[in-house]
């Protein structure tokens, strides 16, 4: 399996480069942890039932609601911004250098995505542990399921981010594009507050965000329920998103001309 071998070569190189500057892994965690510490407590005072869930209210319920949202937010920001790195790699001529070797051109993307997935899982575990310190109580299975969702989100978004960045080849154009795509997705996914608090039209629009389904399923898992339509929808959307994005990304990397 030369593709797997090639992917691991690229992965090891990228991982080595990440570990040379591990500060970035931590810096990416600052934002969600700040939310957890400075925003999370506000949710503990909401009236019982507003956050959905089992309806017991209080700290544990607030964090069962909020931590899945923060995990998705971490995934959204962490994975969509990876494209910046490939623009500088392209500019350094590194992408071209790899493309002239017999290495699989898809592995140039896959190795990077693998690195991003592993980085994100490490960050997610830290975030969950901090959540537990603040009063999150959830089944271990639910946390593992949540990590599974994060992996799917990371695979999908990182692939699309690399592909888009490689097509655009300009940080100046990529940054505003990311903002205009990621911010509406964050707002429409019900990360901070449940979408059910919104008026009907807003809830309707929110249905277009795939992350909405993933968050709902993750939250349901955190309350200890692993069945039902919400879970099926969430898993299907997560897997579908990863598959479609991976396919889109691979088309760009496998092009004969770059």
């Amino acid at each position, binding site marked *: 399996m030369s593709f797997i071998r090639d992917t691991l070569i690229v992965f090891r190189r990228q991982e080595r480069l990440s570990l*040379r500057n591990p500060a970035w892994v931590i810096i990416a965690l600052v934002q969600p942890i700040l939310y957890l510490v400075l925003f999370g407590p506000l949710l503990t005072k909401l009236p019982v039932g507003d956050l959905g869930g089992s309806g017991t209210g209080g700290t544990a319920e607030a964090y069962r609601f909020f931590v899945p949202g923060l995990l998705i937010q971490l995934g959204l920001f962490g994975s969509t911004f990876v494209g910046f790195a490939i623009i500088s790699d392209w500019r*350094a*001529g*590194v992408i071209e250098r790899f493309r002239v*070797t017999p290495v699989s051109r898809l592995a140039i993307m896959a190795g990077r995505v693998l690195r991003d997935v592993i980085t994100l899982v490490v960050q997610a575990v830290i975030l969950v542990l901090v959540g537990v310190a603040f009063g999150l109580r959830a089944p271990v299975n639910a946390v593992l399921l949540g990590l599974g969702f994060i992996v799917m989100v990371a695979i999908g978004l990182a692939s699309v981010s690399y592909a888009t960045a490689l097509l655009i080849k300009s940080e100046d154009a990529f940054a505003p594009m990311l903002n205009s795509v990621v911010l509406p997705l964050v707002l429409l996914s019900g990360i901070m507050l449940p979408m059910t608090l919104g008026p009907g039209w807003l809830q309707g629009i929110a249905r277009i965000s795939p992350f909405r389904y993933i968050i709902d399923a993750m939250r349901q898992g955190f309350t200890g329920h692993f069945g039902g339509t919400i879970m099926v929808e969430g898993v299907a959307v997560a897997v579908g998103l990863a598959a479609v994005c991976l396919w889109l990304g691979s088309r760009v990397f496998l092009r*004969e001309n*770059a």
Partner: protein
Amino acid sequence: MPIIEAEGLARTFRTRKRTVEAVRGVNLTVEEGEIVGFLGPNGAGKTTTLRMLTTLLKPTAGHATVAGADLLRDPVGVRRRIGYVPQAIGQTMGGTDGMCLVIEELLDQGALYRIGKENAARRAAALTAQLDLGGLDRRLVKTLSGGQRRRLEIALGLVHEPPLVFLDEPTTGLDPQSRSNLWDHIRGLRTDLGTTVFLTTHYLEEADALCDRVFIIDNGVIVAEGTPDELKRQVSGDVVTLQVNGASDAARALLGSQPIVRDVTVSDGALRLTVFHGAEALPSLLRVLDGEGITLHAINLSRPTLDDVFLTLTGRSLRDDSPSAARPDSPELQPAGRGGGEE
């Protein structure tokens, strides 16, 4: 069997509004063990041709065999057998990551070519010695000097001992000393290892000093090929460059009507004549000008250079295309300083 054989290689780029024919039908043959230069101004199609021959760009027409593999049917086979050193200036750089250690770049490259760990370590040691990179193994690439980094990039193209290596503008942006040092290394590739070297350059001196054979490319077609000496002989004659005080049009007409003068062009404000037997022609040229009362500011006689070949073939000077050509007061300024080594 030639190591490169290309026929009718062409590449058209489509932008929203127009179609650009970057390369329009290039035929070329390169024999094993040659050092071949691709000479032309920026935008002539050098890099586009090179990118097609190295499988980075799919030709819109034509076909080629490179290092024994068919370019279109077996691109991976081509990649396995060639080395490629991208140009280190312009839109993209030479292919090294500043945050990698020198040794990591070499070993990674070995892994990409699947030459095995031990072999990669052996090659890394040999190449660092061969290209004067000894003792730099544990240095971050970004701390290397411009010349060291360029030599590392060339080392990366040679890790897998390819029989054919493509160097895109190998010395652009280097200071003169690093450049002539690199020339020695490139010559060494052929002498010591029998490697075929295909390089692009817009430095005439480089093509002249380094290449067994030169292809001159302009506007996407090869306009001439041959050894530097053959090409210069095509111009047949010596070049006299004159600067007259005023009345340059009159001087041009006058000199153009002399039977010993083959050709007159005006370049950078100077008259450039092609004459047979320049040394003997000078006195009579001076007499003719004197007779018409045109005074000379400066005169120079030289053997033809590749630039003269280029000028004769295309009606343009290679140097016209350098940024300094916009300033007629410094016609001798070469684009050597462009990019200034490290950026």
